[in-house]
């Protein structure tokens, strides 16, 4: 397994690599238990978000809980399953900042759809097919 160029992967090739603590090296090695714990949490959080619907929660509480559980699940998947927690910040920010800017687009389209609704209600009435 001796290849001079891929010095970083050589860590993974070593037999003793399995016991190595989580670090910044390539060839992610973490205890299986970590994945099982994350898996368990994802199950719990999914159950919670299902129960939000099952118990017919309404209003701000419903939306708040849905968003909370969604963000927690997304965070767990990206941080642990996709190993973002162990990447260098240069990559983390390059990948995670652009999607956050989508929120600007969300604001624009929310404003636009409110305007569309306003015109529909005012000029076409509230009837079906309006």
């Amino acid at each position: 397994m001796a290849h001079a160029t891929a010095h970083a992967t050589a860590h993974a090739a070593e037999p003793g690599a399995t016991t190595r603590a989580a670090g910044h090296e390539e060839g992610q090695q973490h205890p299986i238990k970590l994945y099982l714990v994350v898996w368990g949490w994802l199950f719990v959080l999914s159950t919670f978000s299902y129960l939000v619907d099952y118990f017919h929660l309404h209003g701000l509480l419903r939306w708040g809980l849905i968003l909370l559980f969604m963000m927690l699940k997304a965070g767990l998947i990206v941080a642990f399953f996709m190993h973002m927690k162990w990447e260098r910040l240069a990559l983390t920010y390059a990948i995670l900042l652009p999607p956050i800017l989508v929120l600007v687009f969300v604001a624009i389209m929310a404003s636009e759809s409110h305007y569309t609704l306003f015109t529909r209600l005012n000029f076409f009435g509230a009837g079906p097919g309006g």
Partner: protein
Amino acid sequence: MAETALTQTGGTLARPEGWRGIAADWASDQRSFKTASWGKTMMWIFLLSDTFIFSCFLLSYMTVRSSTTVPWPNPSEVFSLHIGGQDIPLILIAIMTFVLISSSGTMAMAVNYGYRRDRFKTAVLMLVTAAFGATFVGMQAFEWTKLIMEGVRPWGNPWGAPQFGSTFFMITGFHGTHVSIGVIFLIIIARKVWRGDFDVEKKGFFTSRKGRYEIVEITGLYWHFVDLVWVFIFAFFYLW
């Protein structure tokens, strides 16, 4: 000569952390992503672009749903199943969510065993992941069939705003396509793992580069992303 030696061990030298680290990595005149290989970086950038595609779908869904004057069909009722004499809301979607999360769990473990060079466990776990994925697509096909039988079309449905059908088929259809492609991707890589391609560094047919176990992690990135997108679809389309 001393400088040459320095360049070769550059990867093992301690690099600054935090904002200083970001500035140093991006300004280093070499590669910006010090710990990610080109393959992993390219997969991340692809996933970023895919994020924008799904963002646009969910955004258009938000726009049509909040601008319609006709009531939106209640997803809780639309997606309920009649089991044991009573309607259980969203039960199929809940099961699909658990199936996809389980597939992510087995995938994460496959990546781990891949780096430990345990060919057998890696291949088996990847095939289990693919089986979960195929189950998910099967359940989605069942869901589509049920809704189409009930009269849901991209241009209308029996319960309310006609945009419900078009956004539903577009968003879940695109996600289902991603899952299906992921299943194929998983099976191809699992076969290579099983065959021992990455132990002998057999060259890939497409890139002609040496095969490495890192491809298992890259496949995993794609698979976890599919799970990630489902988290958002589940929250915004089914629960909202």
